[in-house]
């Protein structure tokens, strides 16, 4: 009983700590950047204090630039991390994540096609991203479910699919160079220029998909037992797997539609969460949402302040972290029972 009690306390501590971390990085993200205000001044502004002169400028920066950006980081981080946790469980592959298996690039190519061919229909971008993400995810699922495919082969297939989609995006940007404003940032993943208006649609998709996803922990636990056992436990496996892939595509697609091709969140965060909390997906999903949100918000803050007054797209910083992490994972799993 003491072991169970300790574990329970540890879980509560980690979940509440993740929530506090998110609040702290969120406040810091709003306060600091190329021009900064202290958290105390932020509090004064929020409390309805002085808004003229420099304070008025600060308020404008916060409301029009920082707040959408931090909200975007929170939503994209939570969405991509949860999508990664779902994809890893559904494919039973610890190396799978939205960017590795081509889901992000699938969403990206769909966004650019829509932006190029229907420039007036910007509100359709999240839907297009969802369709692109879903198409890529279903291709990978078909390869995976066909059987006889090793985990590493699946990752290679994902990389091949991703390469094709990336070529597609580059082709679109050559043929329609003005298709997407800030396409350079989009291709590496970034949150600059994000407005509340632009965020509203994808936020709706993400919130709905997150709420649904957070109830899927038990289902994911069963799916990781394999098809035969899952079915004998009363699960309609193919249907559930399809539903989960749709959820992951909704999350990843909506995030890509405003944050671009942010990589590695969906790979790193679920692994860190499992390291801290174990592999129970009932905990992995909410913790991934919280830590994914904190991670992207923190990386975006660092990308803004480390090279100030210059600013890196957050995707570049995440690639610097994610690339070595991915290699580490491959080495680790090759040493253990990866196949």
């Amino acid at each position, binding site marked *: 009983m003491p072991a169970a009690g300790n574990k329970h306390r540890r879980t509560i501590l980690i979940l509440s700590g993740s929530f506090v971390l998110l609040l702290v990085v969120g406040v810091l993200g709003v306060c600091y950047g190329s021009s900064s205000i202290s958290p105390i001044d932020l509090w004064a502004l929020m409390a309805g204090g002085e808004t003229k002169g420099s304070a008025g400028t600060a308020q404008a920066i916060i409301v029009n630039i920082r707040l959408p950006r931090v909200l975007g980081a929170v939503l994209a981080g939570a969405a991509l991390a949860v999508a990664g946790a779902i994809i890893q469980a559904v494919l039973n592959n610890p190396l799978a994540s939205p960017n590795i298996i081509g889901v992000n690039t699938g969403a990206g190519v769909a966004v650019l096609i829509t932006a190029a061919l229907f420039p007036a229909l910007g509100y359709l971008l999240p839907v297009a991203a969802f369709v692109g993400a879903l198409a890529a995810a279903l291709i990978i699922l078909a390869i995976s479910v066909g059987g006889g495919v090793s985990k590493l082969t699946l990752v290679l297939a994902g990389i091949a699919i991703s390469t094709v989609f990336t070529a597609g995006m580059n082709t679109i940007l050559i043929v329609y160079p003005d298709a997407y404003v800030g396409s350079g940032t989009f291709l590496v993943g970034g949150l600059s220029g994000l407005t509340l208006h632009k965020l509203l649609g994808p936020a709706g998709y993400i919130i709905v998909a997150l709420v649904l996803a957070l109830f899927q922990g038990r289902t994911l*636990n069963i799916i990781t*037992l394999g098809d*035969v056992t899952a079915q004998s436990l*009363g699960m309609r496996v193919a249907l559930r797997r399809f539903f989960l892939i749709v959820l992951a595509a909704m999350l990843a697609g909506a995030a890509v539609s405003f944050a671009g091709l942010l990589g590695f969140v969906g790979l790193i965060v679920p692994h860190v969460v499992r390291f801290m909390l*174990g*592999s129970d997906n009932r905990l992995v999903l909410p913790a991934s949402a919280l830590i994914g949100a904190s991670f992207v918000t923190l990386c975006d803050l660092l990308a803004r302040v480390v090279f100030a007054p210059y600013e890196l797209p957050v995707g570049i910083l995440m690639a610097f972290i994610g690339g070595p992490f991915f290699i580490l994972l491959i080495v680790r799993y090759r040493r253990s029972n990866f196949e």
Partner: protein
Amino acid sequence: MIEARNIAFTYNHAPFIEGFSHVFDTGSIATIVGPNGCGKSTVVKLLTRHLKPQAGAVLLDGENSEHFGTRALARKVALLAQNTHVPNMEVEQLVQCGRFPHQTFAAPVSREDTRIVSEALEMTGAKPFRHKNVKNLSGGERQKVFLAMALAQDADIIVLDEPTAYLDIHACYDVMQLVCRLNEQLGKTIIMVLHDLQLALEYSHEIVVMQGGSILASGNSEEVIASHAIEDAFRISLRRFWEDGHPYYSFSTQATAHK
């Protein structure tokens, strides 16, 4: 009661299971034996609806199993499959998975779930390592844990496909004694596939001998031995001898004695 009524199944247009009919009595331990490729595992998949028979039907308490919903079926029949994937999760978490067919969407784990999981861990002797990762257990411990999950499923019928595969002899007997306890103390109907004829003859109330996709003979160990079906199916000779009132069996590949 589970009954296979004249079921047939075809692999790649070639008949594999033909005219398989058998009633597995409630509360008994029935073991299906037969040489490799005779269709034992296919019968298990047909009984548990992992495969659909092309002819005939599987009846559960007299009703066609096709008429049951997926969860309703899981509340009646639990399957411990061969070569089950070993998940990266704690023992207790795995056993909790057994409650899935009794839980509704998003409903929290109930007190009854907790009680049944705890009892399953106790009954199978898995309680001492309930916080260990399943991947870190020995083969015998893993089988106990999967049996605990099947037990938590609270189904009247438990189907075990090769539950002793890859286990050392001590673990084999451990698992078989546990199977007997589930049958005797909880009244579970057990249907097993076993390759080990010694274990099959020792622990089963009924043995079903298969050959070429159909039943060669069935009955208790006395009847099956008397019918020479095991010798014919496996092309071996079987000798039984007694010591301290306990039957022992020896097998050899020499020409069968009865021919």
